[in-house]
């Protein structure tokens, strides 16, 4: 039997098909204004790529901010529990600490010995320090997250950027550009600013477990590098970092 996890995030909707604990197919679509439709779309794409029928699936579990809108799901769980379970299994069923940088929120989840969240922290209500912030900064540089990340990796001398509020950071960046500071150094400064913020969240939770970095933000090598440097800790990034929550939701079907 398969199980299906659908993670309806604020930016992207991810679907994971899982059999015997392994991910056998996945899909990702942009989350539209009709979140239910985005979920349907992600689901049918994943089923198509695996060439299986939904009827063969044991259960569909939805998660993410749009979890309740997907009425067909047998169950809805929060992205916090989903990501905890996904990370736990990926990490060989051991306690760990998850950094999840998503579209509209950044969360730190302390995953306990049983794979349940033992504690968690999420960013405050604004977009400071989230994927949305990175997206907005990328557009200041007329590129995307990947482009911004590549740029940052070339930096030899990152500037210090104080703000993780998208509005203030934007004016800080514009002023740095006008002072002819190298674009690479500004980009690297932005990643450092977010990493510093995440580091303080980790310290607030106060957890020494090994760290797993996931969510859309984990695709950025520059952010990963900043995080390792600033936290001074080893940080693992799983193969498909964006699918950890969807994967975890699918796994929870068998719990």
């Amino acid at each position, binding site marked *: 039997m398969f199980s299906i996890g659908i993670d309806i995030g604020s930016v992207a909707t991810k679907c994971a098909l899982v059999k015997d604990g392994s991910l056998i197919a996945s899909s990702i679509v942009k989350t539209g204004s009709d979140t239910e439709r985005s979920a349907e779309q992600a689901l049918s794409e994943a089923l198509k790529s695996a060439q299986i029928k939904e009827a063969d699936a044991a259960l569909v579990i939805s998660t993410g901010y749009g979890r309740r809108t997907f009425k067909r799901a047998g169950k809805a769980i929060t992205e916090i529990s989903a990501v905890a379970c996904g990370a736990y299994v990926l990490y060989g069923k051991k306690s760990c600490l998850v950094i999840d940088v998503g579209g509209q929120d950044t969360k730190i989840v302390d995953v306990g010995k049983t794979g*349940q969240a033992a*504690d968690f922290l999420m960013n405050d209500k604004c977009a400071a320090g989230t994927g949305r912030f990175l997206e907005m900064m990328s557009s200041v540089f007329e590129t995307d997250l990947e482009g911004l990340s590549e740029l940052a990796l070339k930096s030899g001398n990152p500037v210090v950027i104080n703000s993780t509020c998208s509005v203030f950071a934007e004016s800080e960046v514009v002023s740095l550009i006008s002072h002819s500071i190298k674009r690479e150094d500004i980009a690297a400064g932005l990643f450092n600013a977010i990493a510093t913020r995440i580091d303080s969240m980790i310290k607030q939770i106060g957890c020494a477990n090994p760290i797993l970095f996931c969510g859309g933000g984990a695709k950025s090598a520059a952010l990963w590098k900043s995080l390792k440097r600033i936290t001074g800790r080893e940080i693992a990034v799983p193969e498909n970092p964006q699918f950890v929550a969807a994967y975890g939701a699918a796994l929870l079907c068998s719990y």
Partner: protein
Amino acid sequence: MDRDNARYMKDEYLKIIKTYLGQLQTAHTPDISPAIQRYTQNSNLKSLSFFYDTLLKRSTFLDYGIPKKPIVGYFCNLVPEEVIYAAGAVGVRLCSSDDVCARLGEEIIPGDFCSMIKSSCGALFTRRYDNLDLVVVPAACDGKLKLAEVLSPFKEVYFLDFPRDSDYLKNAEIWTQKYSQFAEFLRKRYNARVNREDLLNACKLTNKRTDIFRKIYSLRASHPGIINAFDYFAIASASFVCEANIWSAYAEKLYKEAQYLAGNKPDFKGKKILLAGSSIIFPNYKILDILNELGCDISADTTCSAYGRMYDPVEIDEDTQDGILRALSLKYIAASMCPCFLGIDKLIDRIVEIFREHSLNGIIYHNLRLCQVFEMQSFALRHILKDKGLPFLFIKTDLSKEDTGQIKTRIEAFLEMMR
């Protein structure tokens, strides 16, 4: 008296401020009847109506203190209500978390103050304070201190100042002295006796209220949902604007009715939550709404608007006038869990005690956004309670509805954690 309490500004300055504020528009007292209708929809307890009616008709204190008694408004849970009763006046607690008033308050004080302070200032522009004779502001946080100044052009204000180190041995004498000065002030102001006997009688009134409150508190903890959280905080908020003896009489009725129903109520299946942190005052029910939607009950609390206000009795060792005032300072100040005081142990001890006594499932620490003192405590609470194995969630929010979804996700995840 070290200074004339009503005056924190020279006449010349007062005049300027009064003229300016006089130009600002007055607003209507916010109408709470839709909220009352909403929250009473599912109530099955008949005796609740008195409390909701009280909230509604007392929003401007028009019929309060009849037959004619002066109405003394006060903030916080640090002003001894008993001394006000002993002076032949009636006390009303003014703390409010009204969203409309909070927005009005932003016309005169900075937006980045907690909504409790903003709404207390904003209430100046509604008719809320019109019928008050005097306002007593205690030395809680800095916001409260400056509130005394902001209100002083309009009302006579008594600033009740005292040390904020909650060590009883160190400060009991000073607290007693401050309470005694307050009694002296009321004595002169109202030409009243405020003697030992008056104080003893007043303590009897509030102790009676404590008795009945405690019964309700344990009934709720043992039979979750029998008096739901909406109703619980409504009856507590009603006590702000209701004479202690009248409140007690109706609360007794409510208790009997609820107790009778408790016998045939099916077991509660949801999680039992302990709510600590900032006060919950009707109708600021955002957190209660979310918890209710998620099927759990606030079965106990430590907030200064309910538990903190009514749980502790006045315990008099020595029934001289000073002895009674000292006992009052013990009740209001030394036992206070208000974050404005130095000494967080009391709060932690109580949380652990209540949690274990009533076999609760989790603790939610609610922080009214922009209240720094509450927030500063969250770090210690998180780690100490976690270390003791008690599930803990920190929620920071204000009166607006925009973050409802986010708060809900956090609480939902917290409930999933407890499975």
